[in-house]
C-alpha cells in the first residue's frame, strides 16, 4: 500500500528548537507568585508500625505554611487497576504502618526549599519495627507475616494461562529442559527527576502541572483521593523529561502538592532529587522464573510450563499488568501447542516495582530466548534455524490472546542473519569472541481496560480554519518519543496541508477530548493515530460537499486532499485551496466552526493488543578472559514496526533501546542491603552506559503493513528494549562458555565461571 509522502518521512521533532535553546518548560522550571516549596518525610525503615508522629516543632518553624500526615488526608486508596478495587493499595501518606524504605510519612510546604527541608527534619516519628520480608521466597513461605494486613497473603495477584494438553505434549517431547532464572531490578533513570506544581484558584478546584505519562489517570485518581469530582481536577502539559513507564501513576507528591495548594491557597511545588529517584523510585520487577520447555528431536516446540514470581515491592503499582504481560510474552514469538503460565505478583518490603519499558516482557523474553539458545545447542540446530522452524507468522492465533494481524518475524531472522554475518562467524569462532541472538515481540497498546475508563481509549479533536491552518487537540503525551510530531504528520497526510500549519494542543485534561489513557504499552502511535485519522475524515466529510456544490460534480467523483488543495481526483486542476474550501464551508454552516472529534478503542482484537511488533537482534562481543570485561563490539537489529510514521524517530527508539538493554545486561543494578535500603543512589554508583560505552549498530527494517494501525504502523518503542540482554548473554556464552542465568552479566561472574576466582 502506498502511503502519502509525509508518512515515514524523517521530519525533525517540532519541539526540538525549543528544547535545544532551553525554552522548553519542564515542571521544575515553573515558578508562580507566592509559590510554596514542598518536601516529603520518608520512612527510614522497611517495615514498621507508626506509633506516634509529632509535627508540632515543624509547624512552629517560621515560614512553614502546612504540615500533613496520613491522619490529615482522606482515607481513599488509589492504584491504576481501578477495575479491581481491592488491588488499589496505596495512600499518599502512610497510615499506621510503613512498608518500604522511602514510604511517604509526612509532607510540608514552606516559603523556600531550605525551610521546608528544615521542617521535615523537625518531625518526630516513633516506629516499632516489624520483621522484614525482602524476597519473594520469604514472602510466600508458610507463616510469613503480612505486608498488607487486609490481604490474605503476600501474593497480591495471580494470573494463569492454560491451553493445549501440557502433560500430553511433554510426554511426546524428545527433549525437555527445566531451568530457573533470576532477573534483577533496574531503574528508568529518566534524566528529569519528577516534579509538579499545583495551584487552586477556585475553591475545590485544582490545576496540576506534572511530569507524567498519563495525565488522564492522574486526573481521575487525584480527584478520587481528594474527594473531588473528576471535573474539578485539571492536569496540564509540561515537557516531560523521559518516563519509560516510571511516570504513569498518581504519585504521593502530586497528591500532597494539590492537597496543600487547596489548604493554603498558594501554589505548591515538589521536585524530587536523584537520590529520591534511585533510592525510593519505581523500578523494573526483579523476578524468579522457572521454565520447562519441550521439543521434538528435530526442534519443533511442543510445550512450555512457565512459572514466575514477580518481586513487586510494597505496593501493586503497575505490577498486575506486568504479571499479565509476563505470561503473554512467555509464549510469544513461537507457536507452542501447549502452554501453561502461573504468575504471582508478590509483596515485599522494597520500593515498589512497576512498569518499565517492556512491562514484564524483557524478563520473560530473557528466559525464553536464553532457553531457546540452550535448546539449540543441545539439539544441534542453529539457533536461527530453530527459531524459524517455530516462528509465528501473520494469521497465527494465540489462544485467548490474539490473532497476529501482521508479522515479519521470519524476515527479521533472515535479515539479521545476513547483516551480522551470522553463518560465517558462528561457524568459525575466535577465542574470546562471540555472536548471540535475542528476539522480541511487543504489544501496540493494551486492550484490557484495567483503568476501567468509561471513555474511548484515545481521542482527537481537529479544527480547521479559513487561513488554511488546523488545530489538533489531544490528551496523548509526548514524553520524548515523538507523538507531538508524528500525530501532526498523520493529520497533515489526511488533510493534505503542510505540517507547519498544524498547531497542537496536547495533554490538557480540561480542554482536550476525553480521553487518552497515556503513554505506556507502546499505544500512542496506533491508538491516537487512529483517533486523529477518524477526526480528520469527519472534517473531510464536511469539506467535500463544498466542492461538489461549487464545481457541480457528478456524484461518481472522488475528492483529493493534497498540497494545501482540495480537488477533483479525476481532474486535479479543478479545486480550491484548503483555506478557501473551509471558508465556503463555514459560510454554508452559518458560522458554525469546523471541528470534529475522532476516537479509537480496539474492538474484536482479543484481550491483549490490537497489533504486535517483532524483531531479532544479534550481539557481537569480545570478552577479556583475564579481567572478565565484556565489550559489545556491534549490535545488529532487524525489526518489524509496521510502516514507520517518522523514520528518524523510530531509529531514535532503536538506538535508545540498545542503551537501555546494554545497561540492563551488563551494568545497571539496584543493590539492596539486608535492611531493605537501596545502596547505589547516585549516577556515580548506578552505572548506565555513556556515549563511550555504546557499540556501533547496524539495522534493517522489515516493513509489514499492520491493517489495524494508522497507515500500517505499529509499536516501535518498547519491544526493542527486550532482545539486547538475551543476545549478549548468548554471545558471552559462545565467547567463554559462561551462560548467565542470573542477571546482570558481570566480569566477576564471568571469571568465576572460568574458575579464575572463587
Amino acid at each position, binding site marked *: 500500500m502506498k502511503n502519502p509522502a509525509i508518512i515515514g518521512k*524523517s521530519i*525533525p*521533532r517540532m*519541539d*526540538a*528548537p*525549543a*528544547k*535545544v*535553546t*532551553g*525554552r*522548553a*518548560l*519542564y515542571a*521544575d*522550571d515553573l*515558578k508562580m507568585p507566592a509559590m510554596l516549596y514542598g518536601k516529603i518525610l520518608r520512612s527510614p525503615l522497611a517495615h514498621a508500625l507508626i506509633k506516634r508522629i509529632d509535627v508540632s516543632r515543624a509547624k512552629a518553624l517560621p515560614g512553614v505554611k502546612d504540615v500533613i500526615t496520613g491522619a490529615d488526608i482522606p482515607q481513599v486508596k488509589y492504584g491504576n487497576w481501578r477495575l479491581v478495587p481491592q488491588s488499589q493499595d496505596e495512600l499518599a501518606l502512610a497510615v499506621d504502618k510503613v512498608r518500604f524504605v522511602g514510604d511517604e510519612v509526612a509532607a510540608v510546604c514552606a516559603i523556600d526549599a531550605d525551610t521546608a527541608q528544615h521542617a521535615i527534619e523537625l518531625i518526630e516519628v516513633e516506629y516499632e519495627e516489624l520483621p522484614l520480608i525482602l524476597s519473594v521466597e520469604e514472602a510466600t513461605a508458610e507463616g510469613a507475616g503480612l505486608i498488607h494486613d487486609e490481604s490474605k497473603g503476600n501474593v497480591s495477584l495471580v494470573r494463569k494461562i492454560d491451553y493445549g494438553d501440557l502433560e500430553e505434549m511433554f510426554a511426546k517431547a524428545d527433549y525437555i529442559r527445566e531451568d530457573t532464572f533470576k532477573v534483577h531490578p533496574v531503574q*528508568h*533513570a*529518566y*534524566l*528529569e*527527576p519528577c516534579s509538579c506544581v499545583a495551584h487552586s484558584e477556585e475553591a475545590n478546584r485544582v490545576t496540576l502541572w506534572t511530569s507524567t505519562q498519563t495525565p488522564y489517570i492522574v486526573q481521575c485518581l487525584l480527584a478520587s483521593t481528594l474527594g473531588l469530582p473528576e471535573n474539578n481536577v485539571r492536569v496540564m502539559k509540561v*515537557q*516531560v*523529561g*523521559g518516563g*519509560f513507564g516510571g511516570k504513569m501513576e498518581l504519585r504521593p507528591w502530586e497528591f500532597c502538592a494539590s492537597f496543600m495548594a487547596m489548604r493554603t491557597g498558594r501554589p505548591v511545588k515538589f521536585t524530587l*532529587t*536523584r537520590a529520591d529517584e534511585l533510592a525510593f523510585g519505581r523500578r523494573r520487577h526483579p523476578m524468579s522464573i522457572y521454565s520447562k520447555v519441550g521439543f521434538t528431536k528435530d526442534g519443533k516446540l511442543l510445550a512450555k510450563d512457565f512459572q514466575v514470581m514477580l518481586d513487586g515491592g510494597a505496593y501493586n503499582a503497575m505490577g498486575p499488568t506486568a504479571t499479565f504481560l509476563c505470561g503473554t510474552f512467555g509464549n510469544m514469538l513461537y507457536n507452542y501447542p501447549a502452554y501453561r503460565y502461573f504468575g504471582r505478583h508478590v509483596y515485599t518490603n522494597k520500593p515498589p516495582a512497576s512498569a518499565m519499558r517492556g512491562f514484564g516482557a524483557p524478563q520473560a523474553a530473557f528466559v525464553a530466548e536464553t532457553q531457546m539458545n540452550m535448546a539449540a545447542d543441545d539439539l544441534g540446530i542453529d539457533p536461527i534455524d530453530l527459531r524459524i522452524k517455530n516462528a509465528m507468522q501473520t494469521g497465527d492465533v494465540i489462544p485467548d490472546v490474539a490473532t497476529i494481524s501482521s508479522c515479519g518475524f521470519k524476515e527479521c531472522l533472515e535479515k539479521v542473519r545476513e547483516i551480522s554475518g551470522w553463518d560465517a562467524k558462528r561457524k568459525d569462532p575466535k577465542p574470546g569472541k562471540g555472536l548471540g541472538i535475542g528476539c522480541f515481540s511487543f504489544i501496540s497498546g493494551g486492550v484490557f481496560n484495567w483503568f476501567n475508563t468509561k471513555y474511548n481509549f484515545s481521542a482527537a479533536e481537529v479544527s480547521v480554519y479559513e487561513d488554511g491552518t488546523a488545530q489538533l487537540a489531544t490528551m496523548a503525551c509526548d*514524553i*520524548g*518519543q*515523538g507523538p507531538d510530531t508524528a500525530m501532526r504528520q498523520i493529520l497533515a497526510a489526511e488533510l493534505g496541508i503542510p505540517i507547519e500549519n498544524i498547531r497542537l494542543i496536547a495533554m490538557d485534561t480540561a480542554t482536550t477530548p476525553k480521553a487518552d489513557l497515556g503513554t505506556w504499552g507502546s499505544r500512542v502511535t496506533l491508538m491516537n493515530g487512529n483517533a486523529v485519522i477518524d477526526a480528520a475524515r469527519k472534517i473531510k466529510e464536511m469539506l467535500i460537499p463544498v466542492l461538489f456544490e461549487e464545481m457541480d460534480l457528478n456524484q461518481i467523483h472522488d475528492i483529493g486532499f493534497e498540497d494545501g488543495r482540495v480537488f477533483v481526483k479525476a481532474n486535479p486542476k479543478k479545486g480550491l485551496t484548503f483555506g478557501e474550501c473551509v471558508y465556503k464551508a463555514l459560510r454554508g454552516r452559518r458560522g458554525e466552526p469546523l471541528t470534529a472529534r475522532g476516537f479509537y478503542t480496539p474492538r474484536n482484537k482479543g484481550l491483549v493488543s490490537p497489533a504486535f511488533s517483532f524483531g531479532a537482534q544479534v550481539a557481537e562481543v569480545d570478552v577479556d578472559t583475564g579481567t572478565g570485561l565484556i565489550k559489545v563490539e556491534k549490535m545488529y537489529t532487524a525489526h518489524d514496526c509496521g510502516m514507520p510514521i517518522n523514520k*528518524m*524517530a523510530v*531509529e*531514535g527508539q*532503536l*538506538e*535508545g*533501546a*540498545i*542503551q*537501555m538493554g546494554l545497561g540492563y545486561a551488563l551494568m545497571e543494578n539496584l543493590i539492596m542491603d539486608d535492611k531493605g535500603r537501596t545502596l547505589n543512589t*547516585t*549516577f*556515580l554508583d548506578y552505572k*548506565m552506559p*555513556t*556515549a*563511550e560505552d*555504546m557499540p556501533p*549498530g547496524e539495522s534493517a527494517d522489515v516493513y509489514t503493513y499492520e491493517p489495524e494501525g494508522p497507515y500500517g504502523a505499529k509499536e516501535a518503542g518498547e519491544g526493542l528494549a527486550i532482545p539486547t540482554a538475551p543476545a549478549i548473554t548468548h554471545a558471552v556464552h559462545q565467547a567463554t562458555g559462561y551462560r548467565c542465568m542470573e542477571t546482570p552479566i558481570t566480569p566477576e561472574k564471568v571469571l568465576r565461571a572460568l574458575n579464575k576466582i572463587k
Partner: protein
Amino acid sequence: MAKQNIELIVNGDRYEVAVEPNRMLVDVLREDLGLTGTKIGCAQGDCGACTVIMDGVSISSCLTLAVEAHQRDLTTIEGLATSPQELHPIQESFVQHGAVQCGYCTPGMVMSAKHLLDNNPKPSEQEIRQGLSGNLCRCTGYNKIVEAIGAAAGKMASSAKEG
C-alpha cells in the same frame, strides 16, 4: 547565613545578586535569574544536564558555588542562539539529526559540544564520545547526538573558511 553580593556576567548581561555563600550556581541561574534552560538531573555532578561554560571552560553548575562565579564570564544554553530564528550551528544540527528526544539532557549536551568544538574544531568520533562522557542521555543512545556534533563541526569549519 549572611548573603554576599556578587556580580554575574551571563550571556553578556550583567546581574547583581545577593546569595548565601552555600548556594549553587545552577540554583541562582534558574531561580534568581530565571534562566531555566540549564537543567538539574542529579545535582551531584554526575549527569551533565547543568553544564555551562565559565571563562571558556565547561563546568557542572550544580557543583559550582555561585560566589565562585563572581565577575566570571558565563555562557548558558540561552546565550547560544543569536535569535529564536537563528540557532547556533550545534543547536541546528541537533534538531536536524534527531539528537533530541525528551530534551532534558539537551542543554547540557549542547554546551559540552560547544566546549568541545571551541577547543577541538575537528574532533574524531572517538573524541566526540569522550567529550560527551560526562553527559548522560537516557533516550537517544547517543548516536544521533554524536552524528549531530560531527555534522555541526563540519559546517562550522566550512563557514569559517568562507568567512
